[in-house]
Every structure is written in C-alpha cells, then in structure tokens.
C-alpha cells in the first residue's frame, strides 16, 4: 500500500515530520518498506500535442506519431498502446537526459524509421511504475511549455506492508486512524454529508441469492449520474495516482481509484448508457463468461458473484468490471456502485480466475461496512466537482450488516500475556482511541464494541495486541528464559545424536556434506527403486516426485562437479527418503557416493579407482559411529538394481533387517548421468538401527587383556572361487572362541597352482590364552580345529 505524505496530511492533522511518522508506522505494525522522495527535473521536457498517429509499416506494435511541440513538428516512433491523436503528452527532445536511465536521448532509427525524440512514460520520468503507456496530460496543458509546469509531483511516497488482518489499512484513512490512535495527531474527516439526489433514476437493483447465501453481497448501493463530462482528470489527481504507481485513465475511473486508496473503499462505475435494463446481483449461471476490463474473458463458476443486467454478467463482484459497460471519454451517464462482497468468496473467485486487483485486495480482507454510504457520498462530491452533471437519488439494495457483538476483556489478561500492566483508565482510553466502544461492566472487566472497520479484533488476545501495540512493543521489558535444572539434560534424543555423529564420521572420512531436494525426476525415482510420490503442482518436471533414494541427486551433483574439473568427488547426505504418501512414511537415510579415483596423482601413492570396498568401508564406519557392534552385522552379496549386479552388497542385522545397501553404480546409470569413471555409493537406513538403549549407567565390561604372549599362525586355504570370503572368516572365528583373538585375510590368489575354479585365501590367525602361555601342542590342536571348521563350512583344504 502506497500513499504520499501530503495525502496522509489530508486525513491527519499532525506536527510530526516524515521520519517520526515512518518510525511510528513501523512500530505500530505497518511496516514501512520504502520511502521515495521524488522530483526529477522535468523542465527540459515539453508538453506536446499528438496530431497524427499511423501504424509503423514494419512493426505491428509501433506507431508513427506526428507531434506538435510548440511550433515545431517532430516525427517520433512510439510503442505505447495508449497513444492516440489529440492527446497531450510529455515530449523528450533529442539530447535530454532520461531520468530513469541517466542517459541522453539519441536520434534513433527504429525499424527503418527515424525517431526524433520520445513520448515519455511515467517510469521513464521516475514518476511512477507505469511503463506500458505514456503519460496523458490534461487537455488544457499548454503545448510547448516545460512539462514541469504541468506535472505536479506529489511526494514523498511511503510504501507500507499491510498484514493480512488489516484490511482497514488499505486506505489512507485507516493509516491516519492508526497514527491518531497512537497520539501522533488528530484525525480529520472527509465530507461525508449526504448529497441530495436530484432525480429518480428509474433503475432497479435486486439481490438475487439463494436462501442462506445472502452474505455473498449483503448491501449494494447504486447511484446514477447524468450530464457528466469525462476526460483526463485534473493535474492534482493525476499526480496523486501517478505517485502511487497507478496510471490516470479518465476522471471517472481516476475517482474510483482515488477513493479505493483514500478510504479503502473500492468503487465501480458502469457506463449507464451501455447497461441494459435493471441490475441484479446473483451467482454466475452455468457456462456464463465475462469479458473483463483487463481485456481477458473469464469463464465463471456458479458460486461466483456477478452484477448482471438484461444482457448477462457485466461485472465480477468485488474483483473487476466488465468491458461492455466500461466508461469511455464519451461517457455522460454512469451508475456508481458501492457494495459489500463476501471476503472468502471474493478470495476464492479471484484466486481461481487468477485476477489480482485493488478491489479484490480490499474485499478479501474485509472492507468497512460502515463506509458504504459515506463512501458513496464522498464519491458523489468528487464526481460532481470534477465531471459536473447531476446525481440521482441513491438506490439501496440490502442493508448494512449488523455490528459485531461486543465481548468482554479482563484487564489482567494484559499483564498475564504481555508482562506489562496498564491502569484501567489507560486501557479504556487506548481502546476508545482505536474506535472501540468501551464500558466497564465488572471490576477489571471491560465490555468492548469493535468499530465497523476492525474485523480482526474478536477476543482478549487481540485486545492485548492492540494495547501493547499502542503502548509500544519496545516497552515490554525482556525477561530471561532459564532452564529449570542447574545442569541441562541433553537436548537431542539418542536418535538425533546418532545422526549428528554420523554426519561428522562421514565428514571425517573425507566426504563433503550435501543438502539436496526432497523431490526428484520420476524417471530417476523409478531407476532408484520407487515410482515416487507425485506432487500436484511441482515446480518443474525434474522435481515432481518425492525421492525414494538419496543417491540420484548426489550422483548428478558428482557429475556436475566432474564437469567443473573436480574429477574425484565424495559427497554424503543425511535426510529423508519417502516410501509412501502418508505423513510418516519416510525414513532417515545416510547416503554417500564416491566417483573417480581415491585421490589425485601423487609421487608416493599412486591413485586407484574407487571401488565397492570404499563404499562398504564408509557404511561400516558410519555404523561404528553409531556404536553398532560390527560382529552383529552380516554382509551378503545382494542388492538393488541400480548397482552393478556383481558388485553390490547388503549389510544385514539378523535375518530380516536390511541396515544398508552398497555397491558400484550400475554402469548404464553412470553413463546416463554423465559420470566419468567409476561411481560407488551406499545408503544406510538409520531408523532401522536398534534403538540406542536408555540405560541408567554407562559402565563397560572390565578389560581382560591377557599378559601371556600371542601366537600368530598363517593358513593358506583353497576354496571354490564362488565361496564368499566372509563365510570362511566367520567359520574360522568360530573355531575356537576362547583362543582366537583376531582373524585377518591378507591375500587372495587365483591362478597357477590352485586349480581351475578355485582360489586361495591366506588368513593370519592370532591365538592367545587368558591364563597361560600356549604350548606347541595346544597351538597344533587349535590349528587343526581351524582347518576342520574351514573345511566344514566351505570345503576348504590347506594349500599344499
């Protein structure tokens, strides 16, 4: 919402200067977003008369204009849709500096035609935001004189952000009211006295809503005017509208815009000469359409409020008028509409049709029902003053809705909720200054009647906000929040802490943490194990389903990093994957990827391609950081289809639970994702980990370090090539639990000497007893048990 300081001063008698007003507005909750001082020097620009307008021979949107600049004639090319012969415009001669660009205007050749100067828009002269049309000066502007003599600049312009609850502040009056209530001046009133009607218009207006839906439009006041002169509005009105970014159109339209912003009271004028028969307020009929003033035709739904005449819908209630009854320069007779429309219905209609308008902005937030008749009288004065003619007697359909019921405010609620206490008299005075009726009905209980413009104050908490606002949010003394115990309990749950340590464990392994979108492309979702949960309104097709896996974004990011010269990349993410659409059908996953080589070239350590064991090591390190006992986890050679079928695995907890999946990315997917070299990845499903125990103590089992010397024995065992090493190792570990301390696989050999389809696994076993030094006989016996266990589990034989 924009307004100018002089405009505000028409509503508020105040000594306060700009700075004080701006500060106070912000601290009242009307956040000042911008203050724009205006005043580019317009003296080099001239008032010009457009004498002739022709279509440019080579460009549909451009016009060739002949312009009288006061004795001199100039040919200019103009792209504005509103240029027309006979209009007065602002002419920029060649050489003049255009305020918006800061550059001097040069003679230009546009599509083969010379342009000697320019007709200016408001935005080019820093007079407003309108850049689509050129400024239309009043018809009586003296041709050839400096534009600065005609264009009156109004400023400074103040722009405030109005919160959704304060529809009443979408008018300068509402803003002035706030400042007056805050003690910054005295409210002045427009002349709202009734203007007597001079004739009976003979126009009937009916509200035709089905029973129960009367709230769609409870009140509609029409007033007919005759014998008007419509044309460009006077300079002061144009200046005012231009200042807040509106384009002056014609006196009648400008008046409706002025009142919309002045009182927050949207109006509409129909060209009475183009209205067929009487007016009726009703819901749109099935299939009904409206060609609106914005040049578009809208198909209407049967719950949308329209104003109709004998021809059908001619206006969309509370949103936008129709083209068929719009005012033109020739209009001499109008119907002025001042009505109330249902906020929710207006919002819904506007949203479905995609129409943003100043009227909709106000109606959907609720306009002041008490301002219908005064607004009509004020508009009548403006129309008569600027367009002449005579006004008919008002035609009133419906009635002003009943005032909101009063409610009680217990004054101790103020201190309870805000921490500040005010005297009853001060509370009463604040509420009265805001327009509330106030009466003490019990000790400490104030009965409040909200003013007609405040729909948002309905309960005690609302009153507390009003009181603290006027008193000053800055005067509420801050109080420290202290925890109740001297030493705090952990803020994180065991699961949350686990996630935190997982992040740091993976970062410590050289992976960089990524945060990627929760949504992904459907095709990628499919390739990574799910059809994905679909969004109705995705931001684009690439981000249209919820991700079933964290890998696609990490891998695509790795490819992008490679294209930026980062051939070897390691990324991880801890975040949700989605396996269903219901709330909660998601789980936390820690996923990581590595692409390329384990590091760059180095004089001492030649790099190697990343492989599946890197991915498994990452997953295991992550599980270790979660204090999961590695012995409890089983590796199996199986996994989802996005991995290489021969280079993938799962980490299992018990027979059923898949804790993690890892592997080398399927080469076909790597190719499609433009990954250079090998890519490996893992996903650990953190929510499937056993819940960390919440036990009272954290004591550990005593350390049993044997003082007796350990003995190392190596075994070369030959097994069939397809035997999983893990089955051999676990057989050996189980061969003698009391003596075997460590089992290490240190060589895998296939080839000459071990036979076709066989491999030799070299295993070092460390033996140690808890209570004595092992004898040679004991060692031999243990070795036999080891070989026997290996043979039983895998058919292994000692290599000869």
């Amino acid at each position, binding site marked *: 919402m924009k307004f100018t300081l002089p405009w505000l001063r028409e509503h508020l008698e105040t000594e306060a200067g700009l700075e004080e007003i701006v500060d106070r507005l912000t601290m009242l909750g009307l956040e000042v977003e911008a203050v724009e001082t205006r005043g580019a020097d317009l003296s080099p620009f001239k008032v010009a008369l457009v004498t002739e307008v022709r279509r440019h021979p080579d460009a549909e949107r451009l016009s060739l204009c002949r312009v009288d600049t006061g004795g001199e004639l100039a040919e200019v090319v103009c792209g504005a849709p509103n240029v027309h012969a006979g209009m007065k415009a602002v002419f920029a001669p060649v050489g003049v500096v255009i305020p918006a660009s800061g550059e001097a205007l040069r003679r230009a050749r546009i599509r083969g035609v010379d342009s000697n100067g320019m007709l200016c828009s408001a935005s080019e002269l820093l007079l407003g935001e309108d850049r689509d049309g050129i400024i239309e000066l009043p018809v009586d502007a003296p041709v050839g004189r400096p534009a600065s003599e005609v264009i009156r600049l109004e400023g400074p312009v103040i722009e405030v952000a109005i919160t959704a609850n304060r529809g009443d502040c979408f008018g300068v009056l509402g803003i002035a009211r706030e400042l007056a209530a805050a003690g910054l001046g005295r409210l002045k009133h427009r002349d709202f006295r009734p203007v007597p009607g001079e004739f009976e218009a003979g126009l009937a207006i009916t509200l035709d809503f089905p029973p129960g839906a009367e709230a769609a439009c409870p009140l509609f006041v029409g007033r007919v005017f005759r014998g008007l002169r419509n044309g460009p509005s006077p300079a002061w009105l144009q200046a005012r509208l231009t200042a807040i970014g509106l384009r002056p159109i014609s006196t009648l339209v400008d008046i409706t815009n002025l009142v919309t912003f002045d009182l927050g009271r949207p109006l509409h004028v129909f060209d009475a000469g183009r209205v067929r028969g009487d007016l009726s307020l009703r819901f749109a009929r099935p299939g009904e359409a409206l060609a609106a003033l914005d040049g578009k035709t809208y198909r209407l739904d049967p719950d949308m409020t329209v104003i109709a005449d004998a021809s059908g819908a001619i206006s969309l209630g509370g949103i936008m008028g129709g083209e068929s009854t719009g005012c033109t320069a020739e209009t001499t007779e109008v119907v002025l509409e001042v009505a109330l429309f249902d906020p929710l219905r207006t919002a819904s209609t506007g949203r479905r049709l995609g129409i943003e308008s100043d009227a909709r902005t106000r109606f959907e937030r609720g306009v002041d029902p008490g301002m219908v008749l005064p607004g009509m009288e004020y508009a009548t004065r403006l129309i008569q003053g600027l367009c002449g003619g005579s006004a008919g007697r008002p035609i009133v359909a419906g009635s002003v809705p009943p005032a909101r019921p009063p409610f009680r405010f217990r004054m101790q609620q103020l201190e309870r909720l805000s921490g500040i206490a005010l005297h009853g008299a001060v509370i009463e005075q604040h509420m009265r200054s805001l327009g509330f009726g106030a009466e003490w009905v019990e000790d400490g209980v104030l009965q409040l009647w909200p003013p007609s413009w405040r729909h948002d104050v309905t309960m005690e908490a609302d009153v507390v906000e009003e009181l603290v606002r006027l008193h000053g949010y800055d005067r509420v003394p801050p109080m420290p929040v202290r925890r109740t115990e001297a030493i705090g309990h952990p803020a994180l749950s065991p699961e949350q802490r686990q996630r935190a340590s997982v992040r740091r464990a993976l970062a410590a392994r050289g992976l960089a943490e990524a945060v990627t979108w929760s949504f992904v492309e459907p095709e990628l979702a499919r390739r990574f194990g799910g059809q994905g949960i679909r969004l109705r309104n995705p931001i684009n097709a690439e981000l249209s389903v919820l991700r079933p896996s964290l890998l696609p974004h990490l891998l695509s990011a790795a490819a992008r990093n490679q294209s930026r010269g980062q051939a070897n990349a390691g990324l991880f993410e801890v975040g949700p994957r989605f396996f269903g659409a219901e709330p909660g059908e*998601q789980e936390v996953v820690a996923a990581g990827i590595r692409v390329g080589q384990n590091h760059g070239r180095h004089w001492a350590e030649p790099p190697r391609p990343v492989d599946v064991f890197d991915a498994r090591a990452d997953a295991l390190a992550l599980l270790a950081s979660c204090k999961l006992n590695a012995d409890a986890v089983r590796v199996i050679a199986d996994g989802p289809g996005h991995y290489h079928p021969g280079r993938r695995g799962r980490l299992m907890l018990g027979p059923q639970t898949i804790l993690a999946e890892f592997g080398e990315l399927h080469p076909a997917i790597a190719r499609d994702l433009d990954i250079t070299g090998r890519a490996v990845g893992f996903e650990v499903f953190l929510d499937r980990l056993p819940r960390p125990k919440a036990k009272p103590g954290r004591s550990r089992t005593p350390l049993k370090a044997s003082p007796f010397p350990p003995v190392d024995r190596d075994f070369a065992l030959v097994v069939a090539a397809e035997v999983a090493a893990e089955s051999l190792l676990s057989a050996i570990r189980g061969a003698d639990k009391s003596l075997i301390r460590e089992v290490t696989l240190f060589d895998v050999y296939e080839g000459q000497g071990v036979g076709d389809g066989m491999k030799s696994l070299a295993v070092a076993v460390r033996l140690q007893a808890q209570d004595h030094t092992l004898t040679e006989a004991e060692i031999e016996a243990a070795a036999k048990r080891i070989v026997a266990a290996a043979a039983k589990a895998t058919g292994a034989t000692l290599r000869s």
Partner: protein
Amino acid sequence: MASGLMDVDVDRLERALLAEVAGAADLQALEQVRVEALGRKGRVTGLTRSLAELEPEARRAAGQRYNQLKQTVAEAIAARWRELQSSALDAQLIAERVDVTLPVRPSVEGRIHPVSQVTDEITAIFAEMGFSVAEGPDVENDFNNFGALNIPEEHPARQMMDTFYLEAEQNGRPLVLRTHTSPVQIRTMLAGPPPYRIIAPGRTYRCDSDMTHTPMFHQVEGLMIDRRTHMGHLKGCLTDFVRAFFERDDVPVRFRPSYFPFTEPSAEMDIGCRRSAGELIVGEGDDWLEILGCGMVHPNVLRAVAVDPEVWQGFAFGMGIDRVAMLKYGIPDLRTFFEPDLRWLRHYGFPALDVPTTYGGLSR
C-alpha cells in the same frame, strides 16, 4: 728365563697393538685386530697362558703387567669401536637423506554443510535455555499444517504460502509438503501434556523459485508453553538467542507488531545491520533486518490441541536456518546451498571436528 717377556718387550707389544687398533679403518679390520690380540689364539692371550711357566714371584708381577696390557688394549678397541660405529652411522644417515619438502601423502578433508552446522549452533544455544529438539514428517495433513494453526481454508495467509500439494489425500483433502515447521508444534502438543519447551529444525517447502527463494529450505520452530511465559520472556529468549548466535553482545534488536494466524499478539524481530559497498554487516548500524516471526501462541491453536488457554500460555517463533547461516557466515546466494558444488562446500563448509558448543564457543 725360559718364557715371558721382558718389560720392554711388553711395552713394545702394547705400542704395536695400540697402533694396530688406531689403524683399523673399519669395524671389520678392528675385529681382526681384536681376534689377533685378545682372541683365544691372540697374542695377549698367549702371554697370559705362558704365565703358568713362571715362578710364583715373577708370575704375579708379569700377571699384573699382562692384565694391564689386556685392559689397555681392550679399552682402546672399545673406544675405536665406538668411533668407527658412529662414523658408519653418520655415513648411513647421509645416505638416507630424503627431500622433506616433498608433498605429504594425500588425504581428502570432508565438510559439514552450513545448514547442519548452524542447526547445531542453534540447538546448542536453545539447549542452554532448556529446550529440546522435536521433529515431524515432511509430508503433513491439512490439519497439522493449516487447520490446527488457525489458518482456515480461504484465509489469505494460506494462499500466500505457495503450498506444494501431493496427489494423495487424507480425509478428502490433499496432503501437503509442510510449508513451515509449525506442524511440529501441533504434533508436540498432541503427543503429551504441557509444559512444552522445544525447537524443531527441519526441511520446509514452498512452491516458489527465484533469486531469493528455493522450493525447499530450512526452518527452526520454537515453542515454549507453561503457566506464566509472556511476551517479556519471548523478547528475552530471542534477544539472548541472536546475541549468542551472532557472538556479539551488542546486537541491536527490535520487535514490531505483525500478523500470523497462529499467534496473538504477533511480532517480527529485526536485528541491527549496516550495508556498505554491497556487504551486509550484522550487529551494528542504523538499518534493520527482519530475522524471524514470533508471538504468543493463539488461543485457537491451544484449543485445537485441547490445551486450555485459560491455564497455559507461551510463545512460538519460526526462523529460516539457511537465512541466518547466510547472515552469519556471509554466504551470498541461497540457491547455492542446494547445489552440492565441492568448491562451495570446501569454502563455506565446516571441518568434521568443529562441533559447536556453548562452553567452547560456537564458531572459530
């Protein structure tokens, strides 16, 4: 005298042996000298053996002399041994020299994302004030995201939220990606009785994408409900928070009235800042920067979760995590948070072991 040497001969032998010891060029030569002098068949050993042939009187005198010889030679050998060994080591050390300026073996340093780091910082601060961390799902139903938060169907605030809707529905209404972390308030209050003191960081979604908006971003919600928490506590809590977070005790703060459907009274909090040469300096200056929205929890919200607003009261707030990360660490572009560019992560990310704590300091 049948055997034994005259003293002069012993002296000569000693001189000869000492000269041989001194002349031994390396450890091997010295060993040769030792064997020839002191070995079983060595010259000094032979002398000692010949003592048996002497008269007791002479044997004692000669014995003393031979022992002295043996000791002198042995000491000389030992001294020469040490000498030769040390020069051999010196030679070895010279031979073993490496260029210590060669680059060390590669190790890749990982990084923690600024969103995680800043979430940890925020958590550390609120933990000091007795808050614990709550969570909720990314997919929400209409009630938790809107209805319970006093945002009815046609409310303008609802339209402004740019909600992502799922194709799936619950109770005849489409499910949504949560537009804010506020539904966690509702879940927390539905899960158990008051009092409540939680923060809820997490992912949030809005159907918006431009220079300063991304379809996914991060918020942290705060909720504190008990029998007496009022606006003063709201101001104190959040003022203490921003000063701790920006690690400056003098950050100017301002609370001004605002509007949210789920709080009443409502406020926005600004912090002081200064803009100079395109740079934004937080914590000083005459400009204000909006940092979060907050307010006293609306009685309708409490009623929606069956908490009696006549008894229980308190505040809630919501703040953008990405946004405060940008402010604190001078990260210019929100969109870069979600494009895992390794150069960006290495530059703006944090080392694995930099765990923020209030006792050790939030950042280094």
